């Protein structure tokens, strides 16, 4: 493994950063910081995509990197910031499970994902194959984050960060999906966030809060 070329080492570094950011988001308490962390994740993603593009010379990966930069580093954080300002919510993030437990579960998840990814990575033709495990781990961590948050906005950020993990898997492990698909995915994410934005307002209008515990009425209780 020592003979890895430089760009691969950089990508691995970025992968590690991505994972670290995912952990940071998992434990982050303030919603604005959460958005910043998300933007940072997007940046790491964009950079890694750019490096892959430079190395493999695939043009559409440059596009991907560009879209990522525009969407996940600029547009989405901006939208979220705006939303928070408009909704006037800057509260701390409440959570359902305390931080140490979350961390512990997160670590277990990482181990699990790495284990799962090992046999797959063996087969990969790409030099950055080890990143698949990291991508999977960050998807899992985002999932965990969604589970542990009880406010709407952090949950959405978790959702978006999961998208980041997926995107990372697509670019670093496979050198990118076909262009149409990536465009489609990006469009979906953007529209999704817009719709969610509309939703936040509607939810707040109805419930005077974005706390998800108001959204627990539909159930099969007694």
């Amino acid at each position, binding site marked *: 493994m020592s003979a890895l070329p430089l760009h691969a080492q950089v990508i691995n570094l970025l992968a590690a950063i991505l994972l670290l950011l995912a952990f940071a988001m998992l434990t982050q308490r303030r919603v604005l910081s959460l958005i910043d962390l998300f933007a940072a994740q997007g940046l790491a993603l964009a950079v890694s995509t750019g490096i892959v593009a430079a190395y493999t010379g695939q043009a559409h990966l440059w596009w991907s990197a560009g879209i990522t930069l525009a969407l996940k580093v600029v547009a989405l954080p901006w939208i979220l910031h705006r939303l928070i300002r408009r909704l006037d919510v800057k509260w701390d993030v409440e959570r359902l499970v305390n931080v140490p437990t979350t961390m512990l579960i997160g670590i277990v998840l990482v181990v699990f994902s790495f284990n799962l990814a090992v046999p797959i990575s063996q087969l990969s033709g790409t030099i950055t194959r080890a990143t698949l495990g990291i991508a999977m781990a960050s998807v899992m961590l985002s999932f965990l984050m969604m589970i542990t948050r009880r406010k709407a906005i952090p949950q959405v950020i978790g959702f978006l960060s999961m998208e980041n993990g997926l995107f990372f898997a697509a670019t670093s492990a496979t050198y990118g999906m*076909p262009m149409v698909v990536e465009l489609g995915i990006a469009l979906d994410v953007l529209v999704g966030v817009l719709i969610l934005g509309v939703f936040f307002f509607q939810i707040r209008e109805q419930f005077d809060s974005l706390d998800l515990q108001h959204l627990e009425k539909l159930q099969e209780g007694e």
Partner: protein
Amino acid sequence: MIEILAVLGFPLAGAAALAFTGARREAPAVNIAASLATLVASLALTARVFVDGPLLALDRQFFVDPFNVFLVALTAFVGFTTAVFSRPYMRIEERHGRVNAARLRLYHSMYQLFQFTMLLALLTNNLGILWVAMEAATLATVLLVSLYRTPASLEAAWKYFILCGVGIAQALFGTILLFFAAEKLLGGGGGALLWTALDGVKGQLEPTVLSIAFVFLLVGYGTKVGLVPLHNWLPDAHAEGPTPVSAVLSGLLLNVALYAVVRCKVLVDGAVAHGFARDLMMGFGLLSVVVAAFLLARQKDAKRLFAYSSIEHMGIMTFAFGMGGPVANFAALLHMTVHSLTKSAIFYTVGHAAQKAGTQVIEDIRGLLTLSPAIGWGLVLGTLAILGMPPFGVFASEFLILTTAMNDAPWATPFLLVALGVAFASVFAKVQPMVFGEPTTKRLPERPAMVPVFVHLGLVLMLGLWIPPFLAEWYRQAARLIG
């Protein structure tokens, strides 16, 4: 070729047009017209495929074979009848003050957009596009589910969005893994996501990767199918949205999601030898059937009741597709058809019944047969049909599935027996007093649309007694494709 473009173009154009004119008096007519055009185009496409065989078009990006073309026709048909139904239904809703002009515009536009995404998901050959279309379908319907802007509908839409979004994200991961496995064989270009290309090399795909990919795909698309324990969004979304949306969700969206799962299963079956996908799908299917059956007993809301029934039926189909083999696949395809038709018909009647009674609460809807025989008979016949009473078509497919299971998977039959029994007991216990007994309902400001109901039920009845040869041939070919 041109047919494919027409099938996709009409709903897209309709969506665009209705986005501007959707609140006008003639919007429902436009909606119907667009749906009708789609239906005609899809029938043309069907005829073409029927005559010429499977079709690859537009640089292999679109692929039509008997399996999906029949779903296209079904989708277009139910889309059309639902559009017909929604005309009086939404007008009554408007009179009752539940929707305003802006929301009507949203409704009509999103309805067409939803049609478009469904058809796109069915027609595309690219698994990535399939994913994109599924996600887009979620987005379109989220807005439809929350149309009334009541707390409950917002809650339902939120859950729908988050659960399906997360679920479908897993499907994306699965798709990436598929791509990852195929890339070595097919190169990094666009070819590695084309189903036809993957199908060609499925024997050489790496089994480990494919089985992991299938887990992600199953969990992902399975969420949209409504498989237990991934189903939690489904009853909420069905119950709180407008009835036409419930009808298309149950009748179309679930089918398309299951279609995606089955497409993936075909690939996995080629690569992984030992019935891995089979076991998973049978397990999930059976679990869904059983859990949904027991949940049915607890329902107090009419639409929620039938939403759970959809889970049950999707479970049956998943089980049957999982079991595989020509008969079970045939039966599952037939079940898809009849379930779509029947369930949407039931939603139409339940919608009108709820409008008449002013509530969806089962206990407050009584004696439909006396005051509005059409709605009452529609509901009771539809319910009996969906519960698997012959001579309706649902029985035909359940007959085939159960008898095949008795041979191929006898261990599953006690569960099915119990589940079908409990489901019958639960659903019929709730519907019978709605239909029979002393009436509690009032008059509607507009004539209800009962024609789609009886057209659907008539078709289901026909499929129970006589399946047209071309349709049977179609099912057979599709069943062979699925393997």
